């Protein structure tokens, strides 16, 4: 059984519970053990790196150090913001002498940078797809707009994605899982993530463009792999619709939820009832056949 470290971060314990549920379900079917880091802490996303550059490295570095101590080479970090912070911390420790000496003193742990954070896309592509390909019971008879947002594709030195300006890896995963990805224009545009709380008007404007383009190209759902993207596109729908002539009702779902559907898992167990934008119409569209997991 493959063992991979698992860093859920705050989102997957709260607002993105459905991401956690669906990811764990896939891992079970793929026979991969996700080992949650002992006593993990906040990755510091958004707050730390705008206040204190050392703290911004120290917080995620502690999580990396824990993984090293547990003997884990790879850590699955499903939240794109967490991934960005962990990967950045590893990058800083490997490339900057200053951090290499200072961070271990601060966190009172040894750290070499041997544990490598990976995104959910890396995880699906590298580990899960092969193991679940024979278990895809449901045809996903719908059109999907794959949305990457910013943190999976930027900055350049952290991104593991090819063709960062027009990536295709999510499309490939969806296609191999039996879905129909569409070509659209806004897959790496900004959703306004960092302004989600303070400037909902800007979030509304930016997300409106994204949703409008997806709808005009006939998407049945938007696929995301980041809780920040999800909350903006899903939760801020009232604000978004103010910028549109007609209300946009496209559901926004996690890539793991879609693969869960293809595997025939009960939508409730995948957390489809936890979205703000109702998903029942979309679920109706897909043929249903459930298996027990």
């Amino acid at each position, binding site marked *: 059984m493959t063992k991979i470290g698992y860093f859920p971060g705050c989102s997957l314990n709260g607002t993105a519970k459905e991401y956690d549920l669906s990811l764990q379900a896939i891992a079970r079917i793929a026979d991969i053990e996700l080992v949650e880091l002992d006593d993990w802490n906040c990755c510091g996303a958004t707050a730390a790196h705008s206040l204190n550059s050392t703290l911004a490295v120290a917080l995620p570095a502690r999580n990396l150090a824990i993984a090293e101590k547990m003997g884990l080479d790879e850590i699955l970090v499903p939240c794109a913001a967490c991934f960005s912070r962990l990967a950045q911390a590893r990058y800083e420790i490997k490339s900057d002498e200053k951090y290499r000496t200072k961070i271990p003193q601060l966190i009172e742990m040894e750290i070499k940078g041997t544990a490598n954070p990976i995104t959910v896309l890396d995880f699906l592509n590298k580990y899960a797809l092969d193991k679940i390909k024979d278990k895809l019971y449901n045809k996903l008879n719908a059109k999907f707009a794959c949305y990457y947002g910013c943190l999976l594709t930027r900055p*350049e030195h952290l991104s593991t994605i090819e*063709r960062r*300006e*027009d990536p295709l890896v999510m499309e490939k995963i969806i296609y191999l899982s039996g879905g129909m990805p569409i070509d659209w*224009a*806004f897959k790496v*545009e900004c959703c306004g993530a960092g302004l989600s709380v303070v400037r909902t008007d800007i979030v509304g404007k930016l997300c409106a463009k994204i949703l409008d*383009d997806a709808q*005009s190209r006939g998407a049945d759902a938007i696929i995301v792999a980041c809780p920040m993207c999800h909350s903006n596109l899903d939760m801020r729908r009232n604000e978004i619709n103010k910028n549109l002539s007609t209300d946009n009702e496209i559901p926004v779902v996690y890539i793991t939820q879609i693969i869960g559907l293809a595997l025939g898992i009960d939508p409730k167990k995948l957390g489809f009832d936890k979205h703000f934008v109702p998903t029942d119409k979309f679920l109706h569209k897909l043929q249903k056949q459930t298996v027990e997991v």
Partner: protein
Amino acid sequence: MARIGVFVCHCGENISSTVDCAKVAEIASNYPGVVYSIDYKYMCSDPGQNLIKEAIQKHKLTGVVVAACSPRMHEPTFRKATAEAGLNPFLCEMANLREHCSWVHFREDSTTEKAAELVRVLVEKVKHNEELFPIKVPITKTALVIGGGIGGIQAALDIANSGHKVIMVEKNPSIGGKMAQLSETFPTLDCSQCILTPRMVEVAQHPNITLYTYAEIESVDGFIGNFKVTIRQKAKSVDHKACTGCGLCIEKCPIKKIPDEFNAGLGNRAAIYVPFPQAVPNKPVIDRNNCTYFLKGKCGLCKKVCPADAIHYEQEDELIKVDVGAIVAATGFDIKHSDFFPEYGYGKYADVIDGLQFERLASASGPTLGVLKRPSDGKEPESIVFIACAGSRDPAKGIPYCSKICCMYTAKHAMLFKHKNHHGKATVFYMDIRAGGKMYDEFVRRAIEEDDVNYIRGRVSRIYEKNGKLIVCGVDTLLNSRPVEIEADMVVLATAAIANSDSEELAQKLHISYDPYHFFSEAHPKLRPVETNTAGIMLAGACQAPKDIPDTVSQASGTAAKVVALFSQDELTREPLIAYVNNNTCVGCFLCQSVCPYLAIEKEEIRRRDGTLVKTVAKINPGLCQGCGTCVALCRSKSIDIHGYTNRQIYAEVSALFNRREYAGV
């Protein structure tokens, strides 16, 4: 008894800022054999050289050590000064205090100490130097020009007009290069083909020029004055002597949908083709990768219709060996294509095109006969967005350099569009406008002020298609830094100028160096911009770095002048730093022959007066030997040595290093 003079140079502050030069001179004066030592601010200057000359005569020096920079630049200077004072120039050596000491260390006592040691090593070496005399080798007064673009054409014509023979090799079926593809040229807007084609014809008709088109360089051996080059003449499948150029074969060829390289993929050509109407030579070749006869063994239509019986399917590639004295690389450049700009939809949207494609659309000889029609549906665009620096100056894309030509041709493109469509909307997104050149900035101002082209300073983040329009999303960094969105019918990307895909391979064949972007390297970025580090091989045009036409032509003429200067001598003087064999000890094992990379070792029979053979020994061909020393290392009987770097000299240097203590404290 040796009488050595030591001359320590400050190199302004380059050496003296970390090395105490006066101290070095003082220490050196105590070395055995040194009779004179002095330091001076600029030893390479005239007064500095005079110091050396006067000391040689006054102190009757038998050897000179100049402690200064790397010998690469100034060894010839100091050896010349030595010779002028009546001493054999090869009795002068240089200790490299700059690159090997002052530039790489801080100012400390040990830095000065190291400098003094470097001097001592050379003092010991020069004691064993011998008088040497230059070697003379004949020159083949024929130049090879690789590439038939404007750079190659200019160089070839200049050399040929000076009375020397030129062989031109062009890999495409016609000469003309990129310039033949252009519509108009900046900053005068004169027609590119109109000024180019007369020169192409001149090349073809010049009695001193032999032209090989559809040919490539197979291999290059030899050295300056005596290169041996093998040219691969690719099979044209058409006998150009018999062919009258009537064009019947092209008309009848059933395969007509091959993307036309000359029209940058915007038009089609047949499998048997002439690249463009003004091609030189204006006779067709068969593209065997696309010809039905070569793919399936059937068809043969062109052969049937040819009235001159010029089609020869059985023709094979031919290897032609030529001897040349100098080589000019003028292989030009390429532009970045396709998948490089996914954010701009280049390769995905038919109406997002590159600069070269725009040239073809605007050209009277192009696929639309000069009417600007967009590729997707043939409509005439009302709004065009031009994006400068598409890939250039973008380290994230791997191209940190400026492509140099784009600012100007983008202004030209916008202007041409406005001249063809007065009510059209032309927008240019730019980073900076780099219009350095005679009448260049005036040209850009004209585009902005007279032709009403809208210049927006900012980058474009994305282009996507919506309702048949291309939406260009960018930012205006001057007007309140606002994001802007512009609806366009067509987008032209000034994609980065890059080296040809095969330039690395060619550089290796020529033994010349190239930069990380595969552009060929000049010998010195300022003072030797047309020569390479390999003697006898010069550069012209954009194979060295992105260049516009005036710069290319200037460099080509400069290169031609260098070639003609080389050909003005009947013999070439070479440094005598080559291997030599001691016939008495050579046992004739010829291990040296098998390792010599320059094939410079021959066999020599030693006979008595009556003709009986004593033994066969190795003999160095002084014309071919490059003095690399591989044979010296291999020789089992220690019979080979190198002039200027004999084993004795090297041992003297090494043992000097082991005896350092005696002088270190002085």
